[in-house]
């Protein structure tokens, strides 16, 4: 794996958790970091995109020359989107690869890995899961993705205050994310003056939604907040259309999935959802995001429509980590989990895919939130809520 004894020595030092921040232009310093991704199982497809995004982030950072002599080396571990598989995976990263840091996604996986990471003082950066519970998971869990409460808040606020909808129903995936969004969204909807007319749920991956949709239809909601993943959203809107249930679908970032278009077809048109915005106030992609999509297509031949919303998040996560390492090297501090925590909070002026990214002391981020819809079988921007506008909405 290592081509020179020098690197082996450096890696061994890193293994001992000793300072390796003294990089000179000649010496190649290897920085290993973990990436726990769903490389197998149902979510393997997004896992593969995430891996490609991280590889690309590393290549880009090396090419940028921002930290000469540094070589970043991701160590990929499969967690199969399953918390049981995650426990040995994080143990291996912590104890065998001795990484000070790992990217991670999936809320139950992150919750299972958190105590082990915390004990070993290894920082986890969640770039894939939106569960609001993760804000409080551990001091060693940071989130580079805006959590679900933020997304739910904006879409509900928009539906009630801009679209003047008062009868809202919820239809959610009966899992961690779904329950989490409902726990937050239901009281929030009531608080801002809406009536919650019905709440229905479905088992993850269940193909048939007609019974629940019939129950929802009976209440004649003006808007239905749907929390689904993968191909489920497409199935839901299509089956609703089949029983002639017409309503305004509102949703979170999960709506932006290619299956929503291929399965939902015409039924998916007009659905509104929120997602951390890659689009600036000028209506164009932030330059870093535009560059990401172009490079991604060049490198892997995948056009931007085929890239889900999580892959750029992992690209960003990896870049943030390398930025934090850069800060530590500049300060002459060792790259440890504890120091990385401090460094993340200092990140400022970093050219993010999302405009500006700044961490809050509790390890979460604020990003602009885009309101998007499906028009002409494409995901399109309706409006971008800036960080200031989002902060101004009641909590």
């Amino acid at each position: 794996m290592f081509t020179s004894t020098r690197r082996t020595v450096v890696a061994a030092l890193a293994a001992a958790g000793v300072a390796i921040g003294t990089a000179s232009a000649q010496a190649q310093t290897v920085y290993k970091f973990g990436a726990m991704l769903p490389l197998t199982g149902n979510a393997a497809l997004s896992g593969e995109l995430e891996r490609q995004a991280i590889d690309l982030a590393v290549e880009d950072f090396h090419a940028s020359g921002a930290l000469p002599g540094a070589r970043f080396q991701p160590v990929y571990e499969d967690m199969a989107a399953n918390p049981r598989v995650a426990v040995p995976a994080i143990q291996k990263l912590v104890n065998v690869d001795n990484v000070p840091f790992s990217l991670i996604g999936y809320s139950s996986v992150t919750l299972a890995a958190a105590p082990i990471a915390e004990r070993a003082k290894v920082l986890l950066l969640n770039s894939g899961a939106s569960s609001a519970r993760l804000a409080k998971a551990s001091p060693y869990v940071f989130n580079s993705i805006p959590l679900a409460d933020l997304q739910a808040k904006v879409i509900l606020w928009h539906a009630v205050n801009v679209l003047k909808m008062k009868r809202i129903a919820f239809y959610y995936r009966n899992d961690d994310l779904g329950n989490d969004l409902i726990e937050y969204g239901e009281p929030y909807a009531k608080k801002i003056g809406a009536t919650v007319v019905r709440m229905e749920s479905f088992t993850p991956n269940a193909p048939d939604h007609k019974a629940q949709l019939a129950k929802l239809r009976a209440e004649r909601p003006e808007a239905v907040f749907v929390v689904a993943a993968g191909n489920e959203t497409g199935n839901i809107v299509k089956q609703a259309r089949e029983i002639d249930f017409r309503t305004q679908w509102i949703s979170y970032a999960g709506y932006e999935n290619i299956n929503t278009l291929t399965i939902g077809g015409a039924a998916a048109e007009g659905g509104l959802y929120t997602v951390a915005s890659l689009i600036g106030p000028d209506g164009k992609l932030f330059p870093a995001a535009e560059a990401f999509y172009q490079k991604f297509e060049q490198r892997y031949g995948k056009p931007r429509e085929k890239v889900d919303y999580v892959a750029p998040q992992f690209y960003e996560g990896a870049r943030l980590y390398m930025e934090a390492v850069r800060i530590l090297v500049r300060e002459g501090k060792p790259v440890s989990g504890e120091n990385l925590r401090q460094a993340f909070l200092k990140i400022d002026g970093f050219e993010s895919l999302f405009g500006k990214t700044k961490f809050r002391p509790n390890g979460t981020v604020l990003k602009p939130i885009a309101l998007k819809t499906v028009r002409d079988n494409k995901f399109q921007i309706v409006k971008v809520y800036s960080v200031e506008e989002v902060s101004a909405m009641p909590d």
Partner: protein
Amino acid sequence: MDYLYTVAILACIYAILSSSFNLILGLTGLFALSHAAFYGIGAYTAALFDLSLQLPFLVGVAAAMLIAGACSLLISVPSLRIAGDYLVIASFGFQFLVYAVFVNVKSLTKGPAGLPGIHAPEILGMRFDTPQSFLLLAAAMAFLAIAAAARISASPFGRILRGVREDEIATRALGKDVVRAKILVFTVGSMLAGGAGAVFAHHSSFISPDMFLLDESIYILAMVLVGGAGSILGSVLGALVLVVLPEALRFLDLPSVLVGQARQMLYAVVLLGFLLYRPQGLIPEWSRPVERIFARLGFSR
């Protein structure tokens, strides 16, 4: 090192699961797809005893075993009264039902989010809060469970169970209560699985419903068959092989999105290969080394 300890702890937990499932599948010839459900019931019971009632570890283990055993009666009593394939489908459905309960009875289980913060076990003032010390505890628990399974296997009751498997009618003709024997062994096997769940909950400190799904039951089934149906040492070996192998694969660079499915297919092929070409598994039942050792140590009879 902690990584190796973690793998070893998992091997101990799965050794309990596979040897207890072997009592049901290998010894008695009852096919059930619900072992992970009882494992999960044990884990949730232990977690709730720890988190909500703040009771000591060993009380939690005992409760986990009792409740898992009691729940097993729910499917064993109706479906084992009748001969045939009823247990297959009842256990298959039970696996789905238990998942639904874990997810939906939120007042108790916190739903899909799972239960975090389960404490490290403490016995008589000794805390097992490092992977190293926990391994000792897990190994001791595994030893007890394996000893119990081996003892049952070597006992006269074990002979009745083998009789049920080989020729149920003849066994009944000998005046044995076949139904009672089947229900009893199913209960004992499920209790041990519940105990394994308790150990797992305290080990991982976080449990959630998706840890105890059907593929977990199938995983345990594979351990029993690869190791050798009916052979307790075999199922320990089977657990070891199937826990260590996938972990070893982490160290091979297999950079393919297809690894997961290919691995599952490989498991299926290995299983079929064993059934077709080595149905006795790695360690055949008739060479019962562990049973003999335990018999010599005085565990048996």
